């Protein structure tokens, strides 16, 4: 019985990261943009855990854990900002939130 090559995990991580980039760049809804960031963070976590397997060390798991903590903190603050933006402007479209542009 043979296993899965480690590169498959890394390529899966790259695919998910690219999907996250696509969502971040192409979508107009501010909440979906935010979810794409979470998708990218998840992809990076998969890389960390895969490298941790390769090096037979637990350090990569710790880094993945810290990434999760930072993502949770980022989600709370970001969603609070989204709430405030919606309260002030009544829109979720990122193209209409442009008061710093002109």
């Amino acid at each position, binding site marked *: 019985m043979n296993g899965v090559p480690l590169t498959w995990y890394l390529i899966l991580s790259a*695919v998910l990261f690219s999907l996250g980039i696509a969502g971040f760049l192409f979508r107009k809804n501010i909440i979906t943009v935010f979810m794409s960031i979470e998708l990218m963070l998840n992809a990076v976590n998969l890389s960390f*855990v895969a490298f941790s*397997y390769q090096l037979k060390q637990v350090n990569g798991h710790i880094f993945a854990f*810290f990434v999760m903590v930072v993502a949770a903190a980022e989600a709370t603050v970001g*969603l609070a900002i989204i709430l405030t933006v919606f309260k002030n402007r009544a829109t979720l479209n990122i193209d209409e939130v442009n008061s710093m542009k002109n």
Partner: protein
Amino acid sequence: MDVILFLIFAIIAVVCGINVVVQTHPISSALSLIGVMGSLAVLYLLLGAEFIAMTQVIVYAGAVMVLFIFVIMLLNAGTEAKRGRSFVAQLLGMPLLVAFLALVSYFIQRLFPATTLVQFGAFKSGTAQNIGRALFTQYLLPFEVTSILILIAIVGAIVLARKELE
């Protein structure tokens, strides 16, 4: 067996990931993202990371996504309005992204020759015991700084989302 499990959950993850980007309604995107996170948890288990798999389910799929769905329902976010993108973005966006992915895959193949095989059960150090030992000895200072970060995030969220008192 390992290959079959990996392929099943990798395909689920990629399909749900595409769904996150393609769906126009935020709730559909959020549910697809939960699918991605669940299948990633299974992949972490295959890599021997039990603790990370459990925190993935509890923290990400449990807490963060519930927060997202709360906000989507609170704001009553509807279907995204179709807007015309700029011509350059429409023309170059997808090809550039595919080029990026191909380049990254190429370098991964070159940098990591396929000698390391991932076998379920070959790496047993991902238990809560080992993670806890590393977290409270080698990584004690980052751990404590993280607690301050979470405190700041809580205070910031409350300050941003509260009602203004006159």
